[in-house]
Structure formats: structure tokens, C-alpha cells
């Protein structure tokens, strides 16, 4: 995108200056600025990598922020062992291509107790994700974690700061969050305190897709429609991704043309019927869609204000 400014300015040489920056160029510059501030002022930053489209954009922005150097922090995947197989393949590929270190953390207690999405409901998310993330941050002593949260995702996130402070017990307290003025971020913290940094806070879902399209960023193939085996449960289309999927009596997986708007644990992620097989088609479908992105995620339906509560407990 940066290069495009130069090209455009050549095309418009009659004018004194390059054209006004577009909204995506301004967002990109802001995100890069945030990456650099955190890296310059923190001791052990890490980037949470969850393999979805937001992570894909984050990874590209991290590469841009530090080019020609390699991004000076590792990637951390807090794994639940229940991701789609295609996601694991993408994870390995991106780690290889970026040259960054990849840390995979699986909560050993969840593993030992066999916590799974079929038997354990919200405990599954609590243990694998919320607890897993805290464990990983403590284990490696990270003091700052980059995440791909966006303010447009959900109401309680609209008030999230770019830097979100967590106590030494990983708790988020709305009262201790710091005002953020201009481009100034206060990164100082006490012993054991950490923060999450959200460089793409001001991006919307459409911005993310448009950027992926413009920058030709690789994403998990599950975003594109294809014939896949699914079963229908409570109005959700659940893909049968491996032999661990438990079928109810009478359930027979059917091949349908589907795709996923978000990526997560396969038994918890609803697909949509679609034939959108290219990025413009996906974007077109999204723009014409009538339901919000997170509707495919089962955890949000639990209770009103559930994201706010989960955040206070330390979920990303």
C-alpha cells in the first residue's frame, strides 16, 4: 500500500503533493505505530496468533512495522486442540514463511482432564483459552501481548483501549484503564502487571477484508466456499472435521457448499451456506449479509454482556 502512494503521486505530478491518504493507509500507519511503540517500550512482547483473518492481517502489519528486520517477538498460539485441520496447516505455513518463532501452548490440565466442547460447555473455553492464555503469559514472562481485537466487534469492545491493562492476576478493571490521547501510549507498569495491545482496534470487518484483498494476504481456505461435510444442530451448520466429532443418533453428515465467517474450534463454529469462492465474492456476501460476524460463535449467546464478563476474567 505504501508503494501505491508513490505511484499515485507520480501519476499526479502536476499537483504539489501526493493525494490524501485513504482510510486504509491511515489505519495501517496507526497500527504500525502501535506495534513499534510497544516493542520499543516493553521487555518481552508476544503476538497472540489465532490463525483467523484478523491474525493474518496482524502478522502482515507486524512484518511491515519492522521491515527489513524480522518482527522482534514470537507468535503464541493458545491451542485448544479442537481447531480445524486447515487452521493447523495454515499456522505452520505462516510460522515458516514469516521466520518468526511459534510457541504453541495447550493447557496441560485441560489436556489431562480431557476437556472438550461436547461434554464441558463453557468450561471448555474457560480452561483451554482463558486459563491457557494466563498460563502461557506467566510461563514465558511476557509483559505485553498483541491481540487482534477490534472495537467494531461487540459493544463492550467499543470502549476498549489500544493498550488494555491487566493486574498481576490478569484481571481487567474498567477503572484502571488509562486515557489515550493523540498518539501517546503510557506503557509503564508495575511488577507482574501486563497489558494487551490491540493495534487494529480501529479497523472494521470490511477494512480487514479489503486489506487482505489489496495486499494478497494468505488466509485459511475455510473462509472460501467449498463442498464440506456438515450436520445441522440448533440452527447451526457444524462441520465434521475429524473423527472426534460425535454424531447424534440419526445424524448423517451431508456435503454442502459452505464457508466460515470466523475460525475457531470446529465443533463450536457455525458455517454458512455459500458459494462465495473468491475474496470479492466473500466481501460482497458480507456486505449484503443481514447478521453480524460473531453470530457464528456459540459462546456469545450464553448471556447478555458475556464478553464484558469474560474480559474481566482475563479472556482476550
Amino acid at each position, binding site marked *: *500500500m505504501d508503494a501505491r502512494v508513490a505511484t499515485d503521486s507520480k501519476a499526479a505530478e502536476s499537483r504539489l503533493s501526493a493525494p490524501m*491518504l485513504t482510510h486504509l493507509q491511515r489505519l495501517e500507519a496507526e497500527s504500525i505505530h502501535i506495534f513499534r511503540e510497544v516493542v520499543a517500550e516493553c521487555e518481552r512482547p508476544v503476538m497472540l496468533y489465532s490463525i483467523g483473518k484478523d491474525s493474518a492481517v496482524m502478522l502482515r502489519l507486524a512484518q511491515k512495522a519492522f521491515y527489513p528486520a524480522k518482527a522482534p517477538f514470537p507468535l503464541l498460539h493458545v491451542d485448544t486442540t479442537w481447531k480445524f485441520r486447515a487452521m493447523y496447516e495454515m499456522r505452520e505455513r505462516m510460522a515458516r514463511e514469516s521466520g518468526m518463532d511459534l510457541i504453541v501452548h495447550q493447557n496441560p490440565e485441560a489436556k489431562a482432564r480431557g476437556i472438550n466442547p461436547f461434554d464441558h460447555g463453557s468450561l471448555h473455553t474457560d480452561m483451554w483459552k482463558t486459563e491457557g492464555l494466563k498460563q502461557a503469559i506467566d510461563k514465558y514472562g511476557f509483559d505485553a501481548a498483541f491481540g487482534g481485537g477490534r472495537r467494531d466487534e461487540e459493544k463492550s469492545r467499543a470502549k476498549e483501549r489500544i493498550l488494555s491493562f491487566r493486574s498481576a492476576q490478569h484481571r481487567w478493571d474498567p477503572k484502571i484503564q488509562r486515557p489515550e490521547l*493523540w498518539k501517546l501510549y503510557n506503557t509503564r507498569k508495575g511488577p507482574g502487571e501486563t497489558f494487551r495491545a490491540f493495534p487494529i482496534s480501529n479497523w472494521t470487518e470490511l477494512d480487514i477484508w479489503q486489506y487482505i484483498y489489496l495486499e494478497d494476504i494468505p488466509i485459511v481456505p475455510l473462509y472460501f466456499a467449498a463442498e464440506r461435510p456438515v450436520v445441522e444442530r440448533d440452527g447451526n451448520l457444524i462441520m465434521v472435521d475429524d473423527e472426534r466429532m460425535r454424531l447424534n443418533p440419526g445424524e448423517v453428515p451431508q456435503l454442502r457448499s459452505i464457508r466460515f465467517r470466523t475460525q475457531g474450534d470446529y465443533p463450536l463454529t457455525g458455517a454458512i451456506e455459500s458459494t462465495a469462492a473468491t475474496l470479492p*465474492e466473500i466481501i460482497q456476501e458480507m456486505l449484503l449479509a443481514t447478521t*453480524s460476524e460473531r453470530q457464528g460463535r456459540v459462546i456469545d449467546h450464553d448471556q447478555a454482556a458475556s464478553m464484558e464478563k469474560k474480559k474481566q476474567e482475563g479472556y482476550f
Partner: protein
Amino acid sequence: MAHQSALIAQDIEAYLDAHQHKSLLRFLTCGSVDDGKSTLIGRLLYDSKMIFEDQLAALEADSKKVGTQGGEIDFALLVDGLAAEREQGITIDVAYRFFSTDKRKFIVADTPGHEQYTRNMVTGASTADAAVILIDARKGVLTQTRRHSYLVSLLGIRHVVLAVNKMDLVEWSQGRFDEIVADYRAFAQQIGIEAFAAIPMSALRGDNITEPSANAPWYDGPPLMRWLEDAPVEDDLREKPFRMPVQWVNRPNLDFRGFSGLVASGVVRPGDKVKALPSGRESTVQRIVTFTGDLDEAVAGQSVTLTLADEIDVSRGDVLAAAGNPPAVADQFEATLVWFDEEPMLPGRPYLLKLGTRTVAAQVAEPKYKVNVNTLEHLAARRLELNEIGVCNLSLDAPIAFDPYAENRDLGGFILIDRLSNRTVGAGLLHFALRRSQNIHWQALDVDKAARARALGQAARVVWLTGLSGAGKSTIANLVEKRLAADGRHTYLLDGDNVRHGLNKDLGFTEQDRVENIRRVAEVAKLMADAGLIVLVSFISPFRAERRMARELMAEGEFVEVFVDTPIAEAERRDVKGLYAKARAGQLKNFTGVDSPYEAPESPEIRIDTTALSPEQAAEAIVAWLEKDSAARR
């Protein structure tokens, strides 16, 4: 979330191309409680089709349950985010919302109108290009309207629209509208808002939001959405001289050394002469490096990495600037400060100041005045409380490059950070450098502290005794000095009461006077240490921040904190000077331990428990510690 742009369905690639070239406008909405601000934002999201069916279904359900519109859709519920707020029906923080039209993408900072939330509004305004000021047509220009407008003007927002809302409740009266606009104009001129637009509207009913309203045929201006689409974005920044605060030095290998940052103003091209500040060294831009290839130029707002032709010393916190038109460098300024913290701003207390990418220690002098944001009156002030705004001088520990805030937000806006709590306690706007800062230079002397101390046959020390009144500090300090003098040491004892008879006789016992008291004593102790003396300081010095300031004034290892630890009950029982009795009787205000806090040291070099040691034993322990310490350092 469809923009009903027909292009989406017919030609998505053409739509994407159009969307890609949209500009971005960041704006702020401000209004008093019940002006209908949340309703307006909900309406903007709704009318730009940013609401999905599932959200709409949830909204309809919520509107019936907790809505205030008698079962009709309550748009305010869309944006009142936190559960705590929804229950109380207020917004307590800055929220950011996003929507776009066929022409532009918008980021809205939604800030609450409550009295106590100046902080939030200043935060929201700091990144806004434009401001929407809401007025309830029934109520007209209120005190809060004035406050919001003053803050908008203070933060340098030049595109202002007055949204005269709830016009349906005044029968769309043109007379009423004109009256409000005239009132506002008179006020706006006073505070330097030169131009503004005014739109009669009803956010609840959707009048003059996206389409001109048939209810106001007498109004021929644009509806709000069109005004927002046409408001100029601040692109005059690139007409200004080049500035880039250096964020990070990029050194992947020995052959590459780049300086990364976001261009704050101007344009930069390879071959341009640049100056690094504060060092003043010059070089030439060699390359503008990005992931997608080198650029021919970079403009304000872009994040880039520059390489220079010469190996000059540049690090994080420096500013790269146009060599022919560099910013000034100074360490003393006048600034407007906005205070954010429950703990007041205390003159003399050291805070950290962050401006651009530079963080330095800073002290704020007593305010010249504070501003009553409702009447704009200047009031005398000795400190700033939460949400107060004042004009003060600042003094930094090191010089920084800056531009006045009015010329460049990113080189003139700063935050202050408390050194103990790490909270962001204030924000400020630099006006100008004080002339004395450019004219007084440190005079280098040939005989230094080490030489003076050597001549005295000792190492300089500052032994700082802190503790409650009546803890025994002066008694112990006196005994320590006698012992040291008997050993042939050169000493001086600074006693709290004695210093208050002379140097500090103009100071009282309020928090800010106590801070200044300690600042002066610390500076005197520093001069004496510089003379090579062993300085004994016997002061209550109740605040950690000032003791830490004193410690940081001295050389490493020179400062010895002695906590004379006497429980308050014991000190009060002794009450040698009868002061506790007076304080308890209310005859003595701000008495430490009674109605003013004492913050005990967390890790003093020496702790003396006076309930276990006699004054002689305590003095013995301190002298022994000093001997052992200087032996260890020899």
C-alpha cells in the same frame, strides 16, 4: 450491513475500488446528559445501515424491556456499551464507533457529558478532526455546551457543527433555532471558534440526519451526514515542515541502520537534508524503506523507516526534522495542563512527561491560573484537582524538540505519568519555551565533587531521616553528627524546623508546600554533597514521591534513607513539642499522621525501631552502617 449501494450487488470490484479510495474523518460528539447524543449516534449507525438484523432484533427486544421510548426502538441502547452503564442509563467512558457512507469512513468518539468527565472529552477530542456539539432545542446553550465548546477549541478542532436536536419538541420553530444560533455565535467568538455550522434536527425521528427534512423548509443547509462527508480532513499538516519522532532504530544487521517513525508533519524525500534533535547533527535522507519497496516520498500520517547518508547518532526519542526549518529545543515551557487524576497535581513533584516518543522527568511550577471552564474566568490556584485546567510553567530534566501545540499536535501535546502509580495523571499542550531556559547554561567547573571529597578524606553522603513528628529524628541525627564529628568527619545537619526558620519560612503545611519544602531541602543537600560533606537531613518528608526525587538527585549510592519507625500511638504519647495535642484539638491543620498522610518507606537502607532501640543505640547503628558501607565501596 449493506450500504445500499447498488454497486455491491452488481459490480463488487468497482465497489471495492471506490471504497478503497475513501478518506477517513474522525469526529467527536459532545452534549449534555439527555441531549440525545447516544440516540444520534445510534441513528447514524442505523441510517448508514451498520446494524445487522440480529442486532436489530436484540435492540427491539431491549427497547421493549428497558427502552425509554415507550416500546419504540431506543437507538441509545445500541451504543451504551458496558452492562453497568446500561443499568444506570449513563455513558461513563469514551467509546469509538465506526460507520461509512459512499464517500467516507468515519470514526466517532462518543464522550459523555457529565460534569466530572472533562478527561474523557479531552481524550476523545485529541484525535478528532471535527466536532458535533449537541444542543437540546428546548434548553438552548447551557453551561455544559460552553464547557464542551471550550475544550473543542482548546484541543484545536477547527470544524465544528452545532446539532440543534429535538426540534420536533419545539414545533420546528425557526425563531427558536435562530435564537440558539445567535446565542452560540456570541460565545463561540470569545473562545476562538471562528466558524461553525448549525443544523436543526431530530435524531429520534431521523430529521436532517441523512436527508433534508420536510419539517424545516426554512433550513437550506446540508443534513448532518452530508456535512460530515464534506468537512475538510486536516491535510494541511503536509504543508508544514517535516517532523518525525524516532520510535525505533531498525538494525537487522551491521549493514542496515534505519530510523522508524510516523511522519508527524510535512513531506520527506530521498536527498532531503535533515537534522536530528536535540543533538542538532545533520545528514541527508538516503532511502525511505517500506515492506512493499522504497518510496519516492513520505507524507504526514505515514509510518516509514528512513536511512541516512551519514553515521550520526540518532536514537528513540529524537526527532528528525527538515534541516532548514527545525523545531525548537528547550527544557522549560509554558503549557496548558488538564488534570486527570484523583490525586491533585502538586507543584514541584517530579512526573514523567511523554511527548512524541520521548519520556523525560518533569516538574510543574505552581499554576499561573486555572480556568473556570464554565465562565472562562481565570482563577488563582496553587494546585490542580481532577478535571481542572490550568496554565503552568514546566521544567524538564533534559531538553526536548517541540513545536507549539497550535502548530503541531504531535510535537506539542504531551501526557504526564505518575512515577509511583504509573497512571496517566494529566495531559498538556505546550505553548512556548521560556526564554530563561535558552539563556542559562550549566557552568562546567574544574574542581568536582570527587576532588572535594578526597580533600576532606571522605565520601559524600546524604543521610535522610524520615518519620513522624516526635519519632526522634532530630535527637538521633544530632547524636550521629556528634559521633561523625568526633571521628574527624566533615558534616552538616539540615533540620526541618531550623530550615523553616530561614530558607523555607514562606512555606506552610499544605500538600503542595510540603512538596516544595522537600524539593528545596533536597537541592541544598545536593549542593552540600557536591561540596564533599556528609549531610544529615532530618525531615518528616511524608511522601514517597519526594523522597524518591531526593534520591534521584544524588549520585548512585550516595543517598541513605533512614526510616525512624515510631508507631503513631507512641509518637503521640511522647508528644515532646505538644503538637499532637494541638492537632487533635483542631488548632493545627495538615498535621502528619493526624489529618495529613505519612507514606512509610518501602525499602529504606536503614530502619530504626525506636520502641526497641534507645537514641544512642540508633545513632550507633547508623554510624556502623555508614562505616561498613564506605568500607565496602573502597
